Structure formats: C-alpha cells, structure tokens
C-alpha cells in the first residue's frame, strides 16, 4: 500500500468517527427533548386522572358539607296549658271537636307568654313566626291520641320554622343586611332570649326520616319518597329479573343461530343505549294513554324502569351463562338429563352469582333514574306516604329534583341530605354486588 492510500483511509476513518460523534451528539441533544416530552406526556396523564378524582372529591365534599346540617333540627320547648275550655268546652271528648279546636292559638299564646312586653299586633305576628306551622298540628295529634291530657300542662318540643332553624345553624346571620334576610333583628333578639332561657334545643332530625314531602322545609321528610322508591323497585325487580333471566337463558342456551335471534341480539344492544327519557315517552304513550293505567303510580314507574333495566340484566346474565364451562353441560347431558334440566339444575345455579350481580347493578341504575319518571307524572307533590303500587308516589331522585327546584333556602340542605341517603343506598347495592362477585366468583 502506498502512503497516499493509507492517509486517505485514515482520513476517511476520521471523518466517519467525527460524523458518528456528531450524530450521537445530535441524538443526545434530541434525547433530552424526547425525555422531556415523555415526562410531559406522563404528567398529562396523571393530571387527567387527578382532575377526574378531584371532581369526585369536590362533588362529594360539596354534597356532604351542605347536607349535614339537615340531619339536625331545632326545637323549642314550650309548656302548653291544655285548658278544657279552649279545646273541648262542652267536655264531650268528641273526635271532631278535638280535631277542630284552635291549637294554633294555644301554642301561639304560650309563646307570647314568654314575652309579655310584646303587645303590638305586628310584633306578635313576628314573634309567632318563630314557630313552625306544624307545631299546632303536633299538639293536636297528641291531644287526639290521648284526650286525658286535656286540663294538664304538657311540655312539648315543637319545631321552629325553617328560617330560625337556619339562624340557629348560622346560615342566616347578622352579617347580611336586615332587609336581605328573612329574619329581622328583633326576631333574632327574641330567639336569642329564648335560647338564653334554655328553651331552644338542637337534636337529631327525626322529622326528616318519618315524614313525606311538605311545603314547609322543617316538616318535609323523605319517608314518602323512600317508600315510593321501594314500591317502584319491587315492581321493576318482579318484572325485569324473571324476564331478563329467561331471555338470557333462551338466547344463550337454546336459540338457534338464525335471523330472528340475531335481530333480538342487535336490538338488546341498541336498547341499552337508548336515552332513558325515550323510555319515559314510551311509558306515557303506551301505559298511560293507551292502557289507562294510573299516572304517578309506582306500578307504571316500575314497568318503565323494568324495560329500561332489561338490557342490562340480559347482557350481564348472558355473560354469566357463557362463563359456565361446556363440560358441565356435557356431563349432565351424558347422564341423561334433558336440555331444560341441564339449564335449570346445573347451569343456572352456577351462573346465579353473576346474574344477581348484574341484576343489582341494573337495580342501582333504576334507583337513580329520574327522567323517565318525570314523563309519567311521578313529579307530583305528594304529602301522603304511599301504601301500595297504585297509590300516587314519588321516588328519591325525583324528590331531589323537586327540592332542588324549590326556592326555599332551607331545602338546599335537605336536597343534599336526600342525595346522601340516595347515594348510601346506591353504595350499599354496589358493595353488595362486589361482595357477591368476590365471594362466589369461580375460575374454571
């Protein structure tokens, strides 16, 4: 080799090395950028998860913090003198006399006696505004139940009206200008005096759990809506569970693969995605207008919700049936069982935990559903606690909607409290589903 060639080779080697060094330098420089991009991308992901979780936290804290005050109620202790001449002057103890006596005046007079210096009519009226309109009703009930109270002085713990309840809880306070709040300075002073005398008490809000809806926030409760929900869910369960399981069994175990079953399958998948309000329109047009079933009744509500939850139950049940291994079926068939016996004796019991899990989840969906029930008139203002599936009723989520729409400030806390009750039911149901799945889940 000549020197010239040698030097040329050396120089080309050198350029190659240089180039490589340059390239790795470029890569290294790029790498920094790429790693930064990597970290950024990862941070976006964490951020997104964080946002979603933050939403849950904010949602729950808002509802719990605004709902907690509704679980206490303020009462005023009054010694009401149940004078014979006020209630039953003729001493007949006749039921209608007892019911129609003027308890309002009785209770008001007792309160006014606490403030003998209040004499002006307007002030007197302002003073009695402290009492809830349900106070007289409570005294009336006590007397009607036990007429022997007449002639005695009885101590009652009577509810105060919602505005003073809020004042006691500090929601209404002196910071707002007097004209902007519903409790005047004078009323606040009276209320403070009563409190100093030890007549005002705050206790657990039993009214909220034992009453149905009312126009007066302090008298409104959720028992009516809870019963309505219970009846509606019973109807839904009674319809959707057997129908759903039967349909799933047929489609999974017996159906021949033909046009019809294919149509049914596509149909069920589509029904699962139809907006719930459309089911309400169906219920209104078919059940109420065509068949003349009663409006506002849990019967119709339950039927509509059953149609709505049917796809959920069918899809879940089919998945559960599919999970049962074919060897079970073959073994039973081999022992001479008919196909129906195979299903009822072996496949269904093994699939039952999965089916029940799906059903509970479907029921939880139905329990939280509002929109279709608005269509069939379950938004009525109902003061009675429903006693059957044809009585007018409302359900928990609709009660939430009704209270949320109400202008009274005291209903805000009650709405949140009702939401807390509703969520408790839902969490319980979902937990039950999880436990069922964990406990009976089988790996074949």
């Amino acid at each position, binding site marked *: 080799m000549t020197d010239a060639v040698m030097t040329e080779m050396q120089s080309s080697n050198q350029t190659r090395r240089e180039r490589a060094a340059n390239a790795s330098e470029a890569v290294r420089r790029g790498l920094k950028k*790429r790693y930064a991009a*990597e970290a*950024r*991308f*990862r941070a976006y*992901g964490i951020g*997104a*998860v964080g946002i*979603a*979780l933050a939403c*849950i936290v904010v*949602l729950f804290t*808002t509802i719990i913090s605004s709902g907690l005050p509704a679980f206490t109620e303020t009462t005023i202790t009054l010694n009401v003198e149940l004078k014979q001449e006020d209630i039953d002057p003729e001493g007949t103890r006749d039921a209608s006399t007892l019911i129609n006596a003027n308890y309002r005046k009785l209770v008001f007079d007792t309160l006014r006696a606490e403030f003998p210096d209040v004499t002006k009519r307007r002030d007197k009226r302002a003073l009695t505004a402290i009492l809830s309109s349900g106070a007289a009703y409570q005294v009336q009930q006590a007397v009607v139940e036990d007429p022997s109270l007449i002639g005695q002085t009885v101590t009652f713990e009577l509810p105060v009206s919602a505005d003073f309840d809020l004042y006691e809880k500090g929601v209404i306070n002196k910071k707002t200008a007097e004209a902007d709040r519903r409790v005047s300075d004078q009323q606040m002073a009276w209320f403070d005096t009563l409190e100093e005398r030890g007549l005002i008490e705050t206790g657990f809000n039993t009214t909220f759990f034992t009453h149905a809806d009312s126009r007066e926030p302090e008298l409104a409760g959720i028992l009516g809506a809870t019963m309505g929900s219970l009846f509606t869910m019973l109807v839904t369960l009674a319809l959707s569970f057997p*129908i*759903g399981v*039967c*349909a799933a*069994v*047929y489609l999974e175990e017996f159906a021949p693969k033909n046009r019809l*079953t294919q*149509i049914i399958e596509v*149909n*069920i*998948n*589509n*029904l699962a*995605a*139809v*907006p719930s*309000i*459309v089911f309400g*329109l*169906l219920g*209104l*047009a078919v059940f109420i207008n065509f*068949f*003349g*079933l009663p409006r506002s009744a849990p019967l119709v509500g339950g039927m509509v919700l059953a*149609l709505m939850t*049917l796809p959920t139950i*069918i899809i879940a049940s089919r998945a559960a049936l599919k999970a049962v291994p074919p060897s079970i079926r073959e073994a039973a068939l081999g022992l001479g069982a*008919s196909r*129906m016996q195979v299903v009822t004796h072996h496949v269904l019991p093994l699939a039952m935990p999965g089916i029940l899990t799906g059903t509970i989840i479907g029921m*939880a969906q139905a*329990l*939280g559903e*509002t929109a279709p029930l*608005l269509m069939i008139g379950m938004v009525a203002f109902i003061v009675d606690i429903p006693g*059957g599936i*044809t009585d007018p009723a409302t359900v928990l*989520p609709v009660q*939430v*909607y009704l209270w949320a*729409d109400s202008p009274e400030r005291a209903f*805000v806390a009650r*709405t949140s409290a009702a939401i807390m009750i*509703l*969520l408790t039911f*839902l969490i319980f149901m*979902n937990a039950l589903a999880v436990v069922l799945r964990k406990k009976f889940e089988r790996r074949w």
Partner: protein
Amino acid sequence: MSFTFVLGALIILTVAGFYMGRSRSLADAGGTAQRLHSRPHYYGYFVALWCGIPTLLILGVWTMFQTPIIEMLVQNSLPETMLNGDPAEMSLIMNDIRNLASGNITSGEITPQIQAAADHYVSLNTTSSLAKFVVILAIGIAAIAFARSKINPALRARNQVEKTMMAILIVCSVIAILTTVGIVMSLVFESWRFFEKVSPAEFLFGLEWSPQTALRSDQVGASGAFGAIPLFAGTMLISLVAMCVAGPVGLLSAIYMAEYAPTKVRGAVKPALEVLAGIPTVVYGFFAALTVAPFLRDQGTMFGLDISSESALAAGLVMGIMIIPFVSSLSDDVINAVPQSLREGSLGLGATKSETIKRVILPAALPGIVGSFMLAISRAIGETMIVVMAAGLGANLTANPLEAVTTVTVQIVTLLVGDQEFDSAKTLAAFALGLVLFCVTLCLNIIAMAVVNKYREQYD
C-alpha cells in the same frame, strides 16, 4: 276485589294445583314413582301451568282493558243533552265522574246526571271486579280439573312442561323486540299527529321555537312556532362543551391507566372513576345548578364577563364530568386490545413510551377511540336531568357557551310535565323531538358499535 287479592288467590290456586297434580300422578302409579313416565313433580308443574297461564293472561288483559271499556260504557250512557260533541268538554265531564266515583273533589257542581253516571261507574267497576274474580277462579278450577283428568302414568308430562317453558323463554326474549317496536310505534304515531299540524320542514329547519300555543286565536303568539333548530344547536353546544372536558380528560387518563399506571394505582383508580358513572344524573344536576353555575358566574363577574346563571358552560362542564368514565373505560379497553407486538416493535426501534403511544398505539386504536367518543356524544345528547336543572328554558340560537341555551331533552320535559292535552301541537311536539332524539342516538350507537366491532376483529 283488588288486583293484589285476585293475584294472591290465583297463586294459592296454582300452588294447590301443583300438589294435586303430583299426588294424583303418584296415586295413579300406585304410589311408586318408577311406573310414571316423568318424575311426579312434573305432573304437578303440568297442572300448575294449565291453571296458572290462562288465568294470569285473562287477569292481565282484563285489568288492562277494564278502565277504558267501563269509561266507554259510562260515556255512552250519558244523556244526549250532555254530549255536544266537544271532546274537551267530554274529557272534563269524564274527569268529574272519575273524581266523584273515587271520592275526590270535582271541578264544578255536581248535576244529577253526573251523579248518576258516577254511580253507574262505581257499580260497573264493582261488577267488573267481582266478575273478574269469579270468572278467573272458575277457569282456574276448571283447568285444574281438566289437567288432572289427563294425568296417567303414560302422560309425557316432562316433555310438555319443558315445551311450555321453552315457549315462555321465547316470549321473554321477544319482549326486547316488542319494547323497540313500542318505542318506535308510539313515537312515530304521535309525531305523525304532530306533523299533521306542523310541517316537517318547518320543524326541522325552522329557526324559531316558542311552543306556547294560545287558548284563543286572537292572543299574541297564538300560533306557536315549532322550529327546532335552536334546540338542536343548544344540544350540540352543550355536548360540545361536555366533550371538550370528557374527551381529553377521559382519553389521557385511559392512556395513563393502560400504559403507565402501576397495577396498584390502576386497581384503585379504575373503580374510583366508575363511581362517577354510578352517580345518579339528578345529583350532577344539583351540583351544576347549585355549585358550578354560581361559581362560574362569580368568576365571570370578576373578569368582567357576563355569564348567565343557566349558562351552557356550567351544564356542559358537569355533563363532561359525568361522561369521563364512559370515554376512559371504553378507550382503556381499546388501547389494551392493541397487540403487544406493536408496542414492542416500536420500543425496540428506540422510541420512547410516549412516542410509541402517540405514533403507534393511538393510530392503531383510533377507530375504537372514535367509537367510544361517539358513544359518549350519544350519551351527552340523550342526557336529561343535568340540562333540565342547569340549562335554560328559552330557545336561544347562539354559539356562545356563556349564554343560556335549551336542549331537546329539556323541551321534552317542559312540554310533558304538568297539564297536558293530547291533541295540542305543543304536547305532540315532545314526541316529535323524542323521535329525532331516538333516531340520532340510534344512528350514533350503530355506527360506533360497527366501528368498534370491525376494529376488534382486525386484531383478534
């Protein structure tokens, strides 16, 4: 005879039938079950089915048609003078009769004719209920007797029972189809009546929506306007806001969960996100109306923006939160379905994880992600309670999310809640809107599912 009472009696009768059939078969076989074709309880089921199915059917049909038929009879029995052919007045009279019969308060004073009609109504009702009880009981007993007489050791009871059960199974699965047919029929039928009053072109392309039809023709705005474009626009605006929230948040969290998150984090966060999907929509509505909307309005005033308290922004934001789990769980599935080999190939060539995701996985998963977005949009369009509680009522054709808009679902609810008269265009419009809603969501779902399925097949 209340429905529950008859039903209870029927159930007792059916159970009795079961035991009678079983004991009869055993007696026929001389006390040994071996001589029977089927096991004894199948003979019991045989009798119980014979008794239960026809009577339950009759009970159902009778109860469903009892009220309409009785009302027709009462209406026909009303004296000629009261029937002046006005359907509105007729329904008023019938309402009075119904209220009087059930002991409620009536609207007007009670004329002797109405009193008589109410008495007639009550007596027809009692007769019908009593007749129902007697007829059903008689049929049930006759059926038991008949089925029992058919029992002999050679009777293939199991096969017959199984055949009947199969028929019941088929009927149950057809109910799903019937529901769809019912939805389509009721929507189409009522919409048809609506389109007789308002032309479809006006409904679909009109720019003005004010469904209040006046009682008298000389009142202001007597005709009402049924142009649904503002509603469609409002629905789209709110859905768009919702997707702006749910799209990025849902997709990014799906990517993080599928590709980055350690198993422990994944196991904890996934159920937490599912919680969002389990919260009733009325709760979101409350949250939107009482927390988010006032917050946005206050922030808006701070920055000098005029944000309506029923702004599309508030409803859309909260709806977006609701939809996050739909997007994230569907996208998560799709991303997980991308074959591992694609990932490994890309990583082997030196790409970073994020580059692999952006350049390989997302393009591969794109159809599925698009499908999940479409499903989420269809959810947003059909969502009712959030918009009913947090969006406005006035039809407002605007693209500004700070203003109040109304949506299709809000209008359906406002048109149908409260007093209704079923021949006015106002009420029927709700069904036309429902039809549009149904068709749009159905199309979105079908396309989305087709896209997702097609894509899944590619990699299976």
